[in-house]
């Protein structure tokens, strides 16, 4: 394992030190492990708080700032944050208008956010939760943990953040997040696995000539293995997988996110975007907005995820609303 770390144990603390040094516009509470929009609680503004395991940067810390998140709580690598972090974030951002959690649907994340919400309720703070579950590689069933939260998290945090910035109520902020989630579906392909620093070796073995279809963002294996093919063919497989579980049809508009998983050059992501664009055009689906780059990564995994959000006027307005965060800016 070759990684730019000081020790596997200090990865999160050392990264927080770097985030604090690089972004004076943010407040980083290194002891509580919370990244905050500077300036403290905003009276009357709903606080939007997210968090999750580290290793997905810029998610979530990179989306803290005006127009998106009030706070982000990073857990250990690929491990959800603990309730204490989330409570610290609530106390540092609650302006009396309520709190909305954006939670990716993983058992650990759901449990820790749920415990924090119960503890906050004891303090008289009402917390609403938007669950992100866009990954169609996982069957959504009452018998399983349900679809995972992946790329759509960016769209959800943007939509919820925009409504909160505009003075929306907690119910309206949560509703915007839920609208964005319901309109979004994603699917990912890995060309190589990720290596968790504490584990020291790749999460799974993937032969040189194979890809993992439907891979998760924690290095968990995907739906199935398949031979490596041209970008055009992989893009077609991914678009088909998403559209099979999506209400998008000819005549619709969409926000398209082609997201790098951490170790894939932007050059290749643009090649994928070009193929996705052609495939959607063939189906009569118009790309209204696009985002290409590394937004929801999986450490050093190579590959990409595609998120398609069915966009109505409301979602486009929220997507275009001003934002000023380290990883996403809108004038």
């Amino acid at each position, binding site marked *: 394992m070759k990684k730019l770390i000081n020790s596997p144990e200090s990865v999160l603390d050392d990264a927080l030190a770097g985030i604090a040094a690089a972004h004076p516009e943010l407040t980083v509470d290194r002891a509580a492990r919370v990244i905050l929009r500077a300036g403290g609680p905003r009276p009357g503004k709903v606080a939007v708080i997210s968090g999750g*395991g580290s290793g997905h940067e810029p998610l979530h810390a990179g989306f803290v700032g005006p127009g998106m998140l009030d706070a982000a709580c990073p*857990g*250990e*690598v*690929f*491990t*959800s*944050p*603990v*309730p*204490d972090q989330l409570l610290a974030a609530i106390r540092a951002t609650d302006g009396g208008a309520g709190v909305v959690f954006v939670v990716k649907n*993983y*058992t*650990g994340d759901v*449990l*820790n956010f*749920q*415990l924090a919400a119960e503890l906050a309720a004891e303090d008289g703070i009402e917390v609403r939760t938007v669950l992100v579950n866009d990954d169609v*590689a*996982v*069957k959504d069933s009452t*018998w*399983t*943990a349900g679809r*995972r939260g992946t790329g759509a998290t960016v769209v959800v945090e943007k939509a919820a953040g925009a409504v909160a910035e505009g003075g929306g109520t907690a119910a309206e902020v949560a509703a915007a997040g839920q609208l964005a989630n319901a309109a979004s579906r994603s699917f990912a392909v890995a060309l190589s696995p990720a290596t*968790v620093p*504490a*584990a020291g*070796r790749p*999460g*799974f073995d993937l032969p040189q000539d194979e890809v993992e279809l439907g891979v*998760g963002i*924690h*290095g*968990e*294996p*995907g739906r199935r293995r398949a031979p490596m093919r041209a970008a055009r063919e992989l893009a077609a497989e991914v678009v088909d997988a998403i559209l099979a579980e999506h209400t998008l049809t000819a005549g619709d508009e969409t926000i398209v996110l082609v997201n790098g998983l951490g170790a894939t050059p932007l050059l290749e992501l643009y090649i994928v975007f070009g193929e996705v664009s052609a495939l959607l055009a063939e189906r009569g689906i118009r790309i209204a907005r696009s985002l290409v780059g590394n937004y929801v990564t999986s450490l050093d995994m190579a590959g990409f995820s595609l998120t398609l959000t069915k966009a109505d006027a409301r979602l486009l307005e929220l997507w275009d609303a001003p934002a000023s965060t380290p990883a996403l800016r809108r004038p």
Partner: protein
Amino acid sequence: MDTALALGWLHATAAAVEQHEPELTALDSAIGDGDHGSNLRRGFTAVLAAVDALPPDTPVGAVLGKAGTTLISTVGGACGPLYGSALRTTGAALPTPKADITDLAAALRAGLSTIQRLGGAVPGDKTMVDAFEPAVAALERAAFDGFSLREAAALAAEAAERGARDTVPLEARKGRASYLGPRSIGHQDPGATSTALLFRALARTAGA
């Protein structure tokens, strides 16, 4: 169970987690994300620091409660809230200053209920419940039959270990392993494995 035994159990569990961390990591890498061992080790290191700092006259339930709170605060993931909340519930259900086997079995049954309420798992889902449930059932039977704590804890540890082994042919229906569907078959569940460590540590502490 008294305060000294509870402290001994937590120390023995921490030692077992440390010793078996590579095994837990390997099992979790196969069907999860490989952090179960390191997360639990971090958690139990913090637990020992917290409970060793408690006053010596701390009641047995409060010791386990403190351990649970510490796990919730330090572990993250699913197993932090699940083990942490289970220990808190178990601790809250234990009478002071000493609990007999019947009390302990009932308190651990309450802890198991917390795990199932939070995680929504039932036996057969390939989770820690598959080791926890048979262990508690064994303790209950042993209590009914009038066995000593040493004998009862040994039976519970065997039942937990058998339950963990029996997760191998199961298809996961909860947690991250469930994303694998049929590909989760053939692997032992890491959560059930750490639960077996917990009950084996109890047996060792009780002198079995």
